[in-house]
């Protein structure tokens, strides 16, 4: 079991390492093969672990990571049913997306880098999913943030893409500050970072501290999951390749925030005010994003706002105390949202990077695969009765409705309004882009995309349409997911609502959806599609209620002004003064160096050596004259030598 979990984490990491080191030398098929095999292997491990775990929790410590004094943390894993479901969903969706990307990115020169980051991302996400120590979670948290930055700005040669990546990273970083503070508080209070420990000892917390911690965790989750007020990065993140949007910004990273709240749910349960705020944030964001999605002309931006909206539902579920509903919706959303993104990717590639729905049309005939897939996703997203997201959304609305407190009634109304808008904006896009229209696309404009890209998505479509079966409110297989998650602390398998309320809620949801779809039909199918002017009310919706502009005015502009001021007035003159000062200091040094160079080095050493050599040369020349070959010279020398010899002998004769 431990090996299976270890492999689960190490396979994607191994895929990353192999592709990073040797991907350059491998053919493209091998690179994609390694990456896909890694994730498929992780999928097998996730499935195996789920079967082996048999809905008990398992805790493993892989190794002690680091410690300083009392502060110590390990790389450990808490694998309970919550983690099991999440890991299975992540690996399943990631596998399909990896396979899809192998075809989607086929013409991209940076093929290897893409798959490296995708694998690394899956590793980091699985760390968040399974980790027990919150510091280990933070590692995965930052890892997904980095991979998100790298993948959003994947085509970094275009500055807009790089800016989008930076924006995403900075916004999520704001949330990470809250996470950091929470980590500090956790250590101060519990001396421990383990989720299991915190959950079991949470009961002793004072309400204030519990609220503070819960709100800090909410802050962290807000950043990652792009909820108000940190929603602004997700629409811009659509600058990245479509598979990235599908994986990171539909199925996994944006759900990481919700997942963290679910993991530490017993702590959050202790603080009703925090839960109220969480539910409020979720429902308000859901409605806000639904409004914004209604005005988008870019298909991916519509899906981005839709993601924000649906993640809002997940937050609403947590705030209403129903993590089973939240997880259920998380899984449903992962299926249908990634399906929608990937189908949109087929359309975008077929039309040569066309994102504007008003320049599409007649795609039903031209791209039938994408048509049916998108339709399946759209139906599921709209929560069409009995299919797809209906049961999950219905459960969340029910949980909110039956939660005590007047505020929750308001949240329920907001959620219901968002539920009305969801089919509206979804089918708006559907009816504008796909059905036959006179000003639509022609066959000659379609670029051929690999058929593989379409039929790999069908398993996802089946899951998207049929995942209501996971947790039916009644009948066969009732509350299957709920009971599976029963051992997770804080989970309620059944909501315990009266049957009448349940039926009423279901009928109301169904009616809302059908009404909305009918309205969409009349508004968009029957009338010719015109791109609306982005002024007034429509402009307000399009820009997400001018939130970006607000942040620009509050944060960005003052920062830029201050930076410019510091640069021109302070930094530049300082630099110039610094250079002058440096020159003054260096002058004596240079004089000394010149002295050493000329006086000592050149004159003394160099010339001295030359002089000595000259002297030797002269000596040798003079000596050379003795070998003149002249007889008289030799005779002279002979006599001289003999004289010296005998003279010495005579003088020292007395010593003999």
């Amino acid at each position, binding site marked *: 079991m431990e090996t299976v979990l270890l492999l689960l984490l190490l396979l994607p990491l191994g895929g990353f390492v192999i592709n990073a080191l040797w991907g350059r030398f491998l053919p493209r098929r091998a690179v994609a093969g390694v990456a896909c095999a890694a994730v498929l292997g992780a999928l097998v491990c996730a499935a195996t672990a789920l079967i082996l775990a048999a809905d008990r929790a398992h805790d493993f410590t892989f190794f002690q990571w680091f410690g300083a004094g009392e502060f110590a943390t390990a790389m450990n894993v808490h694998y309970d049913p919550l983690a099991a479901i999440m890991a299975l969903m992540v690996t399943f969706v990631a596998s399909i997306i990896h396979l899809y990307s192998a075809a989607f990115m086929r013409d991209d020169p940076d093929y290897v880098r893409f798959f490296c980051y995708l694998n690394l991302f899956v590793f980091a996400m699985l760390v968040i999913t399974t980790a027990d120590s919150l510091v280990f979670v933070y590692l995965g948290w930052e890892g997904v943030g980095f991979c998100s930055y790298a993948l959003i700005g994947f085509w970094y040669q275009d500055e807009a893409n790089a800016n989008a990546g930076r924006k995403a990273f900075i916004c999520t970083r704001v949330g990470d500050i809250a996470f950091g503070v929470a980590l500090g508080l956790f250590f101060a209070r519990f001396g421990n970072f383990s989720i299991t420990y915190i959950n079991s000892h949470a009961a002793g917390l004072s309400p204030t501290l519990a609220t503070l911690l819960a709100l800090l965790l909410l802050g962290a989750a807000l950043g990652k999951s792009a909820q108000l007020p940190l929603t602004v990065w997700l629409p811009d993140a659509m600058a990245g390749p479509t598979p990235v949007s599908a994986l990171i910004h539909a199925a996994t990273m944006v759900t990481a925030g919700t997942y963290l709240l679910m993991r530490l749910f017993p702590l959050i349960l202790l603080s009703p005010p925090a839960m109220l705020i969480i539910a409020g944030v979720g429902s308000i964001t859901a409605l806000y994003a639904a409004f914004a999605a209604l005005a988008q002309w870019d298909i991916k931006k519509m899906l981005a706002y839709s993601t924000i909206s649906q993640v809002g539902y997940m937050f609403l579920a947590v705030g209403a105390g129903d993590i089973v509903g939240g997880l259920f919706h998380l899984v449903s959303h992962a299926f249908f949202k990634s399906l929608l993104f990937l189908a949109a990717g087929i359309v975008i590639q077929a039309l040569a990077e066309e994102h504007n729905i008003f320049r599409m049309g007649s795609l039903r005939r031209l791209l039938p695969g994408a048509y049916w897939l998108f339709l399946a996703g759209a139906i599921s997203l709209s929560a069409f009765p009995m299919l797809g997201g209906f049961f999950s959304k219905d459960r969340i609305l029910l949980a909110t409705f039956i939660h005590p407190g007047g505020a929750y009634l308001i949240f329920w109304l907001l959620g219901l309004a968002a539920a009305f808008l969801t089919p509206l904006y979804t089918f708006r896009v559907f009816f504008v882009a796909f059905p036959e229209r006179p000003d639509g696309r022609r066959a000659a404009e379609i670029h051929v995309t690999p058929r593989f890209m379409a039929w790999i998505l069908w398993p996802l479509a089946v899951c998207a349409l049929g995942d209501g079966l996971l947790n039916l409110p009644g009948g066969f297989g009732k509350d299957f997911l709920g009971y599976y998650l029963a051992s997770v602390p804080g989970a309620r398998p059944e909501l315990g609502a009266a049957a009448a309320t349940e039926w009423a809620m279901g009928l109301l949801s169904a009616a809302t959806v059908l009404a909305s779809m009918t309205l969409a039909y009349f508004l968009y199918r029957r009338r010719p599609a015109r791109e609306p002017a982005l002024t007034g009310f429509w402009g307000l919706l399009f820009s997400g209620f001018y939130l970006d502009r607000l942040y620009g005015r509050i944060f960005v502009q003052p920062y830029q002004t201050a930076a410019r001021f510091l640069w021109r007035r302070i930094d530049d003159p300082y630099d110039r003064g610094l250079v002058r000062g440096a020159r003054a200091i260096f002058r004596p040094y240079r004089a000394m160096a010149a002295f050493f160079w000329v006086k000592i080095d050149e004159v003394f050493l160099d010339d001295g050596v030359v002089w000595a050599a000259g002297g030797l040369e002269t000596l040798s020349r003079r000596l050379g004259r003795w*070998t003149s*070959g*002249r*007889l*008289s010279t*030799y*005779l*002279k020398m002979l*006599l001289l030598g003999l004289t010296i010899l005998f003279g010495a002998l005579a003088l020292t004769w007395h010593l003999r």
Partner: protein
Amino acid sequence: MNSLVPYSHTLVLAGGLFFLGAACTAARRSLVMILIGVEVMLNAAGLALVAASLRWQQLDGQALVIFIMCVAAAEVAVGLALIVHCQRRTGSLDADRYRLLKD
């Protein structure tokens, strides 16, 4: 015999003669003159020997001088033969002409 010549005087004479012979050998260019210088040096040595035999009243010195004279005669004969040979070879008696020892 008080009118004996003092030993030092004869030694000085012999020394001076020897020096003159050496100068002749060293400073002259003609091969014959070099030989003459050698001859003078030999005779100077003989004179010193005779003076020494007188001084110590032994005949060994004088016997040696007779040896020297024989040797000198033989040596001069050989030397002159060599000079004649060289002169026939190179056509000159100039010592400076013989430079085959120079490298």
